[in-house]
């Protein structure tokens, strides 16, 4: 009787997902990663300012999407493994190694986990690189998009991406793509986080809602 009078809010029993938009782009000399900041559980937004770009190493970041718990766990485990690895080789790890570590976990626990991470960073050997690790696949790409909001911007990024953009242009490209996706996807929104990684290190920036670019609004 008392349960009927005060029904349990549905978000307590729904899985927390980062229905999201993430994007990573290489430019001449580094990479730019971007993400939105909304975490939803069913129909409620449980966190509207979460930073989905988590560092795996000084110059290697990964962007989280899918189930929030799974993605965070993978990122933490790989962070630890990468630290050990970099001590062993006595040098900064390669982006490829970080991506491979993520891929190993995604592939081994394919059935249990549902998270898609995009790994991007800069290393001395190959410069800026972006790796997509969907479900255990490892693929190096000039740019990668992921998350539920990415469906709406496939056309936009296909049309607008050009090789060898400058740092400024890539940042604009990422912010535009995120804004368009947040405008159409119900599970993406909030603020935009942008991380730029080049040989000098990583620079994090947060762009608030009212500072995002505006497009034609019917």
């Amino acid at each position, binding site marked *: 009787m008392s349960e009927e009078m005060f029904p349990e809010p549905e978000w307590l029993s729904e899985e927390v997902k980062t229905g999201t938009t993430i994007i990573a782009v290489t430019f001449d000399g580094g990479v730019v990663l971007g993400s939105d900041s909304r975490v939803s559980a069913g129909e409620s937004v449980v966190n509207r300012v979460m930073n989905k770009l988590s560092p795996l190493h000084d110059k290697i970041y990964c962007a989280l999407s899918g189930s929030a718990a799974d993605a965070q766990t993978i990122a933490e485990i790989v962070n630890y493994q990468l630290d050990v690895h970099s001590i062993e080789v006595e040098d900064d790890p390669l982006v490829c190694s970080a991506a491979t570590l993520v891929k190993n976990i995604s592939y081994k626990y394919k059935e249990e986990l549902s998270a898609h991470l995009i790994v991007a960073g800069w290393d001395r050997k190959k410069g800026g690189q972006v790796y997509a690790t969907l479900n255990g696949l490892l693929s190096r790409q000039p740019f990668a998009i992921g998350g539920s909001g990415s*469906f*709406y*911007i*496939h*056309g*936009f*990024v*296909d*049309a*607008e*991406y*050009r*090789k060898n953009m400058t740092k400024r242009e890539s940042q604009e490209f990422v912010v*535009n*793509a995120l804004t*368009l*996706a947040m*405008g*159409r996807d119900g599970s993406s929104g909030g603020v935009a986080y942008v991380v730029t990684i080049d040989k000098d290190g990583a620079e994090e920036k947060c762009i608030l809602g009212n500072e995002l670019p505006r*497009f*034609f609004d*019917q």
Partner: protein
Amino acid sequence: MRLTITRFAVSFTVIIWRHVLKKFIHNLYVEFLIMEKQHSYSQVKGVSTGTTILAVKFNGGVIIGSDSRASMGESYVSSKTINKLIQVHDRIFCCIAGSLADAQAVTKMAKFQLSFHSIQMESPPLVKAAASIMRELCYSNKEELQAGFITAGWDRKKGPQIYVVSLGGMLLSQPFTIGGSGSTYIYGYVDAKFKPDMSLEEAKQFSINALALAMGRDNVSGGVVHLVVITEPGVKHIVVPGDKLPKFHDE
């Protein structure tokens, strides 16, 4: 002499009767088919236009466009060159997304009602009238139908217009609109690239690019691009074959 006349009369009568009976039976059969169609479930996976359709208003007219693939289920392409742009009146076109059978039935009915309406009004029909007819049909047959429409055209009262009738029967007027399964991939692109009051060339390029991008990502859209440009002087149908479509960075 009498025998010949009688024979002639008999054979004449027989021919007439056979003709009449044939017509009668044919009509019965057609009615039976119509009855069948109304009772069949449109939820059953028949030929469905997994598709991409769009309509854009520009300075002086409207462009309505679509891809040309019809698929059965997710894996069989039943037609590579189907035209999904249906003319319901001289300067009013309609394009369909969803079950092809439902769409054809609705547009046939709408075409008939619209021509009747234009005879009664003694003037070409308004685009809004065409869209309202579609909306009536969609709303009253909400449970059975599974199709959404874009109606676009030109009339003397308000110039170029685009109306969207969605699945449940909502009617909305918009400066541009996209629909179909392939449209999800180009929301970002059209949001970024649309400008009000474009010229004809810009609008054409915009539509061709958007459709090419959607066909590049959606596996149930493809084939050629059909465009219809509707302006006051008339209607022009443009077909852009697959090899003339714009290529983007990874192709």
